[in-house]
């Protein structure tokens, strides 16, 4: 997917003739992948440093340098896994702005852990959106999984509480909570999420195992604001990058990791239940140059 430097070869002749033009175009291509101008500048500064100090004149070497810089930013040192608690139920809270793919991702995650023979329960805590409950119920039926839902407009905190009660009673391994989409700028709705988090922590007596922000890969620079504000309210543990089957490159996750240290943990690449994968920084970076 993220084939951001696919035209590197095309602009290579410029490197020989006019270096400034070469770097400018490289910068443009990175920006075109939605990497922020700051992150782009940072990566290129590092690359340039080597190129000039070591007098590098070989496009393959420049590619390697670029890759190294990008992997450096994306790598997590083992922090890319999902945390499974030793005292079940493990709890994943899925959050994000409207329409990014939260509900679908909840279903995909549930399917993924069901495959691993875990007992999964879905908590339908989006009580706001029209037919949100029916949408997730559809997936729960399809996957033959437990689901807890309340009436429309009821308190999402109560849904979560109820879900955890039932999970504990039924010996569930993993509870995945779907929440309503909300803008990071909406004070009240962010407070509502904080409250949900408190409910969970009180019930399980520890931090929530995973709080994952769902980011749509077609999103531009605003994704950074999303990550920052959701993180301020909730202390995110990671990101699910969705819709990477589109032509957008999701480069903003580089900026998010670089600026805020929040790693991408999963990616989704379609509307089917098995279109979910663990994020692999090396592969991701590798695919840039394929």
């Amino acid at each position, binding site marked *: 997917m993220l084939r951001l430097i696919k035209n590197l070869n095309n602009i290579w002749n410029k490197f020989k003739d006019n270096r400034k033009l070469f770097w400018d175009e490289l910068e443009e291509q990175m*920006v*075109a992948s939605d990497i922020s101008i700051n992150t782009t500048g940072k990566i290129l500064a590092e690359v340039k440093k080597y190129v000039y100090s070591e007098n590098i004149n070989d496009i393959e070497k420049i590619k390697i340098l670029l890759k190294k810089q990008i992997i450096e930013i994306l790598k997590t040192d083992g922090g890319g896994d999902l945390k499974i608690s030793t005292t079940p139920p493990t709890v994943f809270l899925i959050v994000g702005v409207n329409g990014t793919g939260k509900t679908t991702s909840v279903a995909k995650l549930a399917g993924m852990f069901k495959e691993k023979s875990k007992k999964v329960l879905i908590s339908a805590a989006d009580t706001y959106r029209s037919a949100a409950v029916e949408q997730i119920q559809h*997936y729960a039926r399809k996957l033959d999984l437990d689901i807890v839902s309340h009436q429309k407009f009821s308190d999402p905190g109560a849904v979560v509480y109820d879900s955890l009660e039932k999970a504990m009673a039924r010996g569930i391994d993993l509870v995945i909570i779907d929440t309503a989409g909300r803008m990071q700028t909406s004070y009240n709705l962010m407070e509502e999420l904080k409250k949900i988090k408190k409910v969970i922590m009180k019930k399980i007596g520890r931090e929530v195992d995973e709080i994952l922000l769902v980011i749509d890969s077609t999103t531009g620079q*605003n*994704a950074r604001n999303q990550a920052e504000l959701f993180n301020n309210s909730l202390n995110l543990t990671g990101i699910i990058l969705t819709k990477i089957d*589109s032509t957008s490159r999701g480069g903003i996750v580089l900026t998010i990791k670089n600026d805020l240290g929040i790693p991408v943990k999963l990616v989704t690449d379609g509307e089917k239940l098995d279109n979910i994968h663990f994020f692999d920084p090396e592969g991701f970076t590798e695919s840039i140059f394929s």
Partner: protein
Amino acid sequence: MFDLLTNKFENLFYKIRNKGKLSPDDLDDALREIKLALLEADVNFKVVKEFLENVKTKAIGEKILESLTSYQQVVKIVNEEITRMLGSASSGVVFAPGGPTIIMTVGLQGTGKTSAVIKLASFLKNKYQKKVSIIAADIYRPAAVLQLEDMAKNIAVDVYSESNSNPVSISVKGTELFRKSGSDVIIIDTAGRLHIDEKMMKEIVDIRNRVNPHQIFLVLDAMTGQEAVNIASTFNQRVECDGIILTKLDSDTRGGAALSVYYVVKKPIKFISSGERIEDFDIFYPDRIASRILGMGDILTLVEKAEKVVSEKEAKKIEEKIYKNELNFEDFIGQLKSIKKMGSLDKIFSMLPIPDKNRIFKKINLDDSYLSRIEAIINSMTVEERRKPHIINGNRKKRIAKGSGSSVSEVNKLLVQFSKTKQMMKQFSGKKGKFNFPTGNL
């Protein structure tokens, strides 16, 4: 609070302060800053490049380099250009003469099509007294029909749906039915699809060919990044769109995608959606988006206001004091008054180009009563205390607190903030040489 506010004012006014005549290098600097602003706003990089070339030509043509307020003028030209571009767009819906107007929405997954269909239906129903009906042509997304029906119930609009059918035949049958039943407007809600999904793109082409909608709207998420141009171009190539519905403008996105798409695809933005409620929908106003994209808030208005409020002489005096590190509470209260003259704090604040305003706003509890409290504290100081804040000891603090009806800790907080501000300004004036105090000498 004051810290933050000065900080913002400071950067802002430092940037747009009168630089005197602009050299060609200065013009390039200004354009580079605008380039960054546009890229940060998600304007497509190719569009940015072309656009700035145009602005440059125009700036040179208008001889702004010889003008005294050239920096502002560059910003003004850019602002005008964007507004002009977006504004050449006609707004609203064109109703078909005679029979019902058929409208189809298309777009990527999750952009807000279904919500937009409902909002548009309600808008046309209430504003134009039209009989509106909706066709549910999304057979893929779980509970898509239910979603539509549930929302349509609230606005009392009929929905046509079929199970075990395909979107083309649903659309054909639905339009026939609603034509007969006397609908003025028929809106088709289609499933989300990727522009590169050939099979799905063919589906909307088929619907178009069979139903011949009068208007096809591309629903575009305002937060879309650099790919917006390709997405919009492809949809436009396949089904020829008549306009764009821009959604999720209630986010703090700067919305550069709108500009890019208009620039490349030349299709007007017709409507905007800025929230989840049915009322959060309106006809598009180009000028609002232009300044938002530039991240300028209403800088220009602010500049004018500030110019009126603070006399040049006053500003000079303060500038000198900052330089000598002599700023005291008397000046401070003068500044507070100036700020207040510019309007209510939240109003001023809302004009500033600060991302994420809401959060900051909540955090610092920025309201006018807070300003008044500060004013009350300063008013309870003696003249000597105001001029030499360092003499304020514990006893004096108690007295000031009592006199102003506040607590000692509030007095303390103000003193700390004040000294920080002072330091910061000192640094600033030291580094940048001649420094214009935030509210003066623009």
